[in-house]
């Protein structure tokens, strides 16, 4: 469970309503793959990941980023039940995809940086705090069904 104050909840909702989920997803995933290149290990089928430019403009990266962020968006609507919301995805990431849950934390942190980039001063320390709590909650929910 994520424990957000009423102010944090409304800050998250307000900011998220302005997020272009399609673009931000691709950017976050792209930045993850560039800044932490070992994360590329999960994306052998994505084609050209040979340079930052190649990664950021790769259509499969953009498409997958969009998919990931739409999922994340669902989480935001269910902050009181993240474990339930992400149960199936957690099983998928463990049983089929074999993704180390550490990667969820890395992506969450990159997403926070992308939001900071888009929103500038509006991304205050308090707003950052709220979002860091959310991405941690989502990462924990995605790791919950690992066995």
């Amino acid at each position, binding site marked *: 469970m994520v424990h957000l104050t009423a102010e944090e909840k409304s800050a998250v909702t307000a900011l998220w309503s302005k997020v272009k989920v399609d673009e931000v997803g691709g950017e976050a995933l792209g930045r993850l793959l*560039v800044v932490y290149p070992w994360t590329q290990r999960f994306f052998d089928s994505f084609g050209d990941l040979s340079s930052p430019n190649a990664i950021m403009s790769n259509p499969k990266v953009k498409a997958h980023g969009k998919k990931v962020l739409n999922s994340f968006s669902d989480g935001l609507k269910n902050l009181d039940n993240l474990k339930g919301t992400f149960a199936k995805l957690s099983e998928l990431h463990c049983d089929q995809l074999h993704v180390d849950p550490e990667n969820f934390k890395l992506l969450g*942190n990159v997403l926070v940086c992308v939001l*900071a980039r888009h929103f*500038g001063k509006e991304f205050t320390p308090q707003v*950052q705090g709220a979002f860091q709590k959310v991405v941690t909650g989502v990462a924990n929910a995605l790791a919950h069904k690992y066995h």
Partner: protein
Amino acid sequence: MLSTQERIQVAQVWDLIAGHEASFGAELLLRLFTVYPSTKSYFKHLGFCPDETQLLTHGQRMLEAVGVAVQHMDNLRAALSPLADLHAQVLRVDPSNFPLLIQCFQVVLASHLQGEFTVEMQAAWDKFLTGVAVVLTEKYR
């Protein structure tokens, strides 16, 4: 460790920070304390709600040290040796805290540079600051 391109990225970003060490450092610390309150345990001399003057003073000190690291990217170990001693013998900041500080550093950069905060800058600074953290904790045991 850092490629030529990465060194250029580090230096370019530093040019934007230089002269603003205090305000950058203050915002860095404010974010660190707000987002990761447990980090305040290392700053009990600043109290539970450090004021702006305290954040500016300490923030400046920290960013000036980053500036030293930028000037000596080729030899961090020698340049940061006194600070490494300080962290090992006196401060003893648990190594798990450095990634938290680095995350806040990236957020300050991203929120100020916005459109200019390229993925190459983010990658170079993450690698550079991680290298600094390694040197600062190297003498712990």
